[in-house]
């Protein structure tokens, strides 16, 4: 069996900060029939060896200071911002944009220095007016752009809002398009939705389209934790402008991506990631159809190549890997070769997509159909879990079925909808959710 296992070829230099790894849901596939397999292409990153080696960040904080933020929410947000500020180094660039009915740049992009002026500006924020969210992001982007050419810096916008955008463009589609454009410039927007009043579609789409993280914070007291997690990512960027190209040989045809979005071009799939964080695994899942192959043979199933800019050396770098699988008629061998982790990742992303569909159905006032959608997904993975003895799958199926029951009985409430959206986006983005964020401090 070891002979059948793939060897991971590393094309990049030994000290490359990003490694590519290809896993398949089963290393041995059934011979002589058309097979369907899940190819998981992982981008593994190592943490920077020394913290002082970390790339500098160009962080813009776009803070909602509309009337609804007044009181505890704003106080926590300010506290969190101050805590975040204290973790930045003197050389990092920081800007602060506060938006209500209009947009005001309280701190234009500048080196953090001793941070006192920035601290004063953060403390001076008070709540008033409406929510010009689009303008706030635009202005924050404009501040980030001032140092965009300096490639030492990792650009990032942190958007905090607790309300519905009601000044300026406010359709999720508008913000999604803006996210796409910002992504092209290498700017990621991390969105933090606070409380139950914000528009989760808008916030998650903006984050997804710009390859940023997204968080749903029901209690503003959690904000400092979120900031710590987010800053942990931003301060830990090891690679930027990552383009992953997966090529499939003849006889293996990509059917589509599960979870993370990408473009399927004939025999290849291309994905773009804005930033990779140290110590985190990001991956793409591709469903492939494998043409009938003779028993006993081995076959290359995929080849992956990643091109990125090293955040520390600011130099372009690449890495590559290939994967081969074996074919057999022994069904037990096929089952034994199952990669339970790949299956679980696939299942989680499939459930995330299923949840998105369920939200759409619930929005269309078909809670029964939404529940049925979730239940079907749960059943599928319960079957799969039983077949492969995958406990994680069974757990997930159980949890999804519970979600389905809840949707069936209570419909999709505001908080549940926000949780669905945020979890779905976090899963697809392989974002370390904030509940585990504290551990990275």
């Amino acid at each position, binding site marked *: 069996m070891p002979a059948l296992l793939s060897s991971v070829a590393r094309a990049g230099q030994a000290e490359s900060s990003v490694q590519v790894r290809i896993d398949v849901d089963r290393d041995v596939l059934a011979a002589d029939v058309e097979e369907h397999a899940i190819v998981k292409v992982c981008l593994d990153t190592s943490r920077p060896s020394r913290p002082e080696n970390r790339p500098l960040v160009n962080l813009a904080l776009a803070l909602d200071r509309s009337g609804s933020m007044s009181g505890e929410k704003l106080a926590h947000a300010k506290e969190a911002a101050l805590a975040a500020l204290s973790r930045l180094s003197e050389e990092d660039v920081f800007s602060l944009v506060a938006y209500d*009915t*209009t*947009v005001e*740049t309280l701190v234009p992009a500048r080196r953090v220095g001793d941070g006192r002026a920035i601290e004063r500006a953060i403390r001076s924020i008070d709540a008033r007016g409406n929510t*010009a969210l*689009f*303008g706030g*992001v*635009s*202005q924050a*982007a*404009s501040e980030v*752009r*001032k140092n*965009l*050419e300096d*490639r030492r810096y990792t650009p990032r916008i942190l958007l905090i809002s607790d309300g519905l955008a009601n*000044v*300026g*463009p406010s359709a999720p*589609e*508008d*913000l*999604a*398009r*803006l996210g*796409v*454009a*910002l992504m*092209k*410039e*290498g700017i990621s927007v991390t969105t933090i939705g606070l409380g139950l009043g914000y528009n989760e579609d808008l916030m998650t789409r903006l984050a997804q389209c710009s390859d940023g993280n997204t968080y749903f914070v029901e209690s503003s007291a959690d904000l400092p934790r979120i900031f710590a997690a987010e800053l942990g990512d931003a301060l830990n960027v090891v690679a*930027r*402008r990552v*383009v992953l*190209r997966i090529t499939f040989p003849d006889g293996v045809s990509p059917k589509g991506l599960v979870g993370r979005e990408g*473009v*399927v*071009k*004939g025999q290849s799939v291309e994905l*773009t990631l804005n930033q990779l964080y140290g110590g985190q695994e990001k991956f793409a899942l591709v469903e492939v159809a494998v043409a009938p192959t003779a028993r006993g043979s081995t076959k290359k199933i995929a080849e992956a190549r990643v*091109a*990125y*800019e090293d955040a520390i050396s600011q130099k*372009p*770098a*690449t890495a590559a890997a290939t994967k081969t699988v074996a074919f057999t008629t022994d069904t037990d061998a096929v089952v034994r070769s199952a990669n339970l982790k790949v299956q679980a990742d696939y299942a989680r992303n499939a459930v995330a997509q299923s949840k998105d569909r369920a939200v759409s159905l619930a929005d269309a006032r078909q809670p029964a159909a939404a529940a049925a959608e979730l239940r079907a997904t749960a059943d599928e993975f319960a079957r799969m879990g039983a077949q492969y003895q995958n406990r994680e799958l069974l757990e997930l199926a159980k949890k999804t079925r519970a979600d389905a029951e809840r949707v069936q009985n209570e419909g999709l409430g505001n908080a549940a909808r926000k949780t669905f959206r945020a979890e779905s986006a976090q899963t697809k983005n392989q974002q370390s959710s904030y509940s585990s964020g504290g551990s990275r401090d």
Partner: protein
Amino acid sequence: MKTYCPGVFGSSRRIFFYWLLLLIPALAIGGVAVVLLKRERDRLALRAASAEQARRAALEARTRLVAENVELLIGDVEDGLLDALAQPAETDLPNLLERWQASQPMVRVTFLARASGELLRPSATTPGDEARGFYRRFSAQFVSSPPWSLTKKKETDVPLNQAFAPQKDFAQAEEARNQVQANTSKIQMARKEARSLYKVAPSSSDSSSAGQTASRSEYADTRQAAAPSARAPAAAAAPKPRGEDRRGWFSTMNAGRTHVLGWVQPGGRGDVRGVELELSALVARLGGAMPADLDAGEGLALRDDHGLVLHQAGSIPRAPVDPAARVPLSDPAFAGWEVVGYLEPAAYGRDSSGGFFVVGALLVGIFTVAIVSGGSLLLWQARRSEAEAQQKTSFVANVSHEFKTPLTSIRLYSELLEQGRVASEAKQIEYLRTIGRETQRLARLVNNALDFSRLEQGRKKYQLESLDLGGEVIRILNTQEPRLAEAHMAVKRDLPSEPIAVSTDRDAVEQIVLNLLDNACKYAAAGEEIVVSLATDPSGAAVLRVSDRGPGVPATHRDRIFEKFHRVDETLTAEKTGAGLGLSIARQLARGLGGNLHYEPRPGGGSTFVLTLPRSSVARRVSGAPGAEG
């Protein structure tokens, strides 16, 4: 007082004249002040209006400037994209189009089409949702009516060396309008950013995707450097003469969303290259055209063709109101887009000048009223003093007259007795008695005059002692009986058998009773009857009634008869002498003793004067000088 008195009339005319003398200047000053106030108000209103006009003009200029800046930004992006798109040769094109779509933030989709409108790229099979969506939206539309075959919507065939001419205009506009430095730097920053975009130019050699970032390093600080570098390849790529480029921008609605597309046909023939603008990204950058600083009360907003506010600055009214300034964008691809300016009502507007007038007029009014009423008060006081002086004069005359009668009698009889011309002893006794009676009368008069003066000065002092009021009344009536009998007045007594003990001033009570009896003798002599009754009322006070069958007192005089010097101005009383003091003194004494004296008409005709005395008098006025009584 019926007598005609020219002096009094003359003096009241004089007083009226003085009053006019006061009134006219006060009113004149007030009037002039109001007129001046009005003029000041109008001047203020005028100034406010012109200030408002200036604000409005400034806002209009600012709105226009922002609109120009927005157009410049849009123009920069549009021209930059199409310029860059027109450069590469056919062979380089697919590479450029693909990389642009992937990396140029202002580009949503790139496309290539035949002049006929047939879409070459993206095709129905091109991978990617964006490309497929574009194909679905526009393939049919392009074939049915290729936008480039229509009347040219916007020809931007700007000679290369004039590409940045608008910048010059902007500089002039900036000077002309004295725009705030911060605003200028903001828009310049936005334009610089926008221009830096198209330098993700067709550098065909780097095929690695990390090259996206590499090409960014071409960033140049100044536009002077930017212009040639962006266009240098053009000169090399197209050395042979070719026709003018055709290019244009248009917008189209699809499923409720606006799409803005630009196309260029290099050389004016052949295939058409184009881009769909990433509208959200452009809109995000247009925020840079909004001024950073605005005057207080000003608001500016950029609105799209649906009237949706895209960016705003300053204070925008919440309720929908008509904007004070409105400048539509001239770019046909952005038809319906406009920059609007709002103006809050000025703090020092017409209203406050009205308020100034009201307050001013109020002050003038108060001032005038104060002068006139103060003057009138003084004049009234003068008239009153004059009337009092008049009364006193007539009082002196009356009193003198009163004194004269008893004195004449006394003198006459005493002379007769002195000369011994009265032989009869009975006569002598009668004369002496008359002299005595007249002396008593004189004494009463003098007492009255003294009391009056003491009461006037507030120096009347009461000697309180316990006495039986019934006995005291009997004593007084007994003393006065002869005199009353002489005046043919029969006195009927209605007095209680048991004593009524009161603590009071014996002399004051006697004075009151005498005055009442005198009053009855003087004015009700024809009635021939006086009834004196004494009783106690439920509260325990003693009530003494002196009733006559005289003509009574007319209703209008019933209270005034107790005023000093007042006399009922009837023929009846006019022929009687008197100082008009008796009742006034009697009431003042009664009140001084804690009681009262009032008039009641007597049933069946005549008058009743009712004296109420409390059981224990509390002397109200106590003399400052204890020995003043004498």
